[in-house]
């Protein structure tokens, strides 16, 4: 009779284990407050990304359209993917000396892996990571960006 008892207990423990799982799914079926779905485009206004979130590299400009980039190319050297290309020019200071300055800060978003190494490398904190994340565009050339605003110049006193 031993094997019959085993057979029956097998069947019962199996059914019990199945019912246990069904209890859990049944609980979630009836408890709609457990739902975790975020309805993305709808909650766009309330969506707050952490301040450290790395979306893309931007250059900080103040209200006078001045930035802090000296064109030292530390970020360009730090970048593992050749994402950043800095084109420099020579400004003539009032004293008549030639001074290296930033002409164009070219940023290839399509190559960027958001590793934050350029931000770490920047000695003057001229660039930072923005919290934007919707980068899709229809044309790849739009992903190559110029980070310094047109007509912007370096802030006074930054070497």
């Amino acid at each position, binding site marked *: 009779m031993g094997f019959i008892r085993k057979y029956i207990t097998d069947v019962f423990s199996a059914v019990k284990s199945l019912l246990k799982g069904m209890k859990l799914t049944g609980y979630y079926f009836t408890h709609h407050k457990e739902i975790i779905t975020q309805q993305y485009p709808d909650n766009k206004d309330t969506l707050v990304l*952490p301040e450290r979130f790395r979306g893309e590299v931007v250059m900080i400009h103040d209200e006078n359209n001045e930035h802090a980039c000296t064109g030292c190319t530390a970020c360009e050297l730090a970048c593992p993917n050749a994402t950043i290309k800095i084109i420099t020019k020579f400004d003539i200071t009032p004293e008549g000396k030639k001074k290296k300055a930033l002409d164009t800060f070219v940023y290839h978003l399509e190559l960027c892996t958001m590793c934050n190494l350029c931000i770490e490398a920047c000695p003057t904190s001229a660039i930072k990571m923005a919290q934007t994340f919707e980068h899709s565009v229809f044309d790849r050339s739009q992903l190559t960006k110029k980070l310094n605003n047109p007509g912007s110049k370096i802030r006074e006193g930054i070497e």
Partner: protein
Amino acid sequence: MYRQTEIISDLSKTPPSEGLEGADMIINIGPQHPATHGVLHLVITLNGETIKKVEPHLGYIHRSIEKMCESLSYRQFIYATSRMDYLSSHINNHGCALCVEKGLQIEIPARAQVIRVLMDELTRIASHTLWWGAMAMDVGALTPFFLAFREREMINDIMEETCGARLTMNYMVPGGVMFDLHPNFQKKVKEFITHFKNKIDEYDELVTDNVIFRNRTENVGVISKEDAISYGMSGPSARASGVQCDIRKLYPYEIYNQLQFEEIIETGCDSFARYLVRMKEMRQSLSIVEQLIDNIPDGEFQAKTKAVLKLPKGEFYSRVETARGEFGVYIVSEGGTTPYRIKFRSPGFSNLSSLDHIARGSKIGDLVAIMGTLDFVIPDIDR
């Protein structure tokens, strides 16, 4: 006493087919297949539903990270390793940072060490929860996947807040970590701990105890201890066969030797044992996080390092325990700013080499369960 599996002496030869000559069916699982979790391509020789041979074809997402790293500096190459085992990218980065630090002989501040271990263990939980969901999905239960993602999202949110990214964090730098912890970190992790303690019991209720799941995994995909060692298996997959191989215990790095945790070893050798090891590991990782979360020392989060790192001439090897097993970084330095040769010993690659041995003689359905419990991440295998 461990279960023994037959060792087929010549790996290239399939066992002679019974009955009709040429009656074998060759079927391609992958590169695009729901069970391979990526672009793994398995060429399977079948006799009816029984597997006679499994032959992995790799390289569909091989990016040659090793070659790439040869032209990157010691600060730069770490980011690339996030892309290998993307589910435990923190731990990969950690291994690379450790190797560079070994070469430079930098002392890591205590705070940075604790942060690193905390992040590693959170990553391990996140990786194992995802594995749990995917594993359950492989054997046909679809609900666990969503429950697993609920917990994984919580960890990802914590990571996002502190590290700035959700998947490829690049948080470890030679000498410490990139940022200090976010002010919300402790509060959020504590919330997660209380949440997860309840939910992991639900996991057991839903899947572990389920009789169908037990039948699908018990005595399926058996690999003996000797074979597991011979196949170079590591991580939970090897520990399920009774191999003591937790790098955190055997070769402690950071502060692991001061922590209270168990190395989970099962002797079932089958898919269910591999499953159990991971489930128990999640609880262990949670207890490590619990031990550390209130005891984060103050101080620097990054050691002072030179702007340009130059490793001395020589060879450096560091190993860490990722969610999938032993991750090794082997750097050959010529004294320059870039590694001369870098080799990543990825756990998935060695574990994959055992797949043919494990899966022979089982059914197609078993193969899926075996691959689920071996927990392959394909970029980790391909590198």
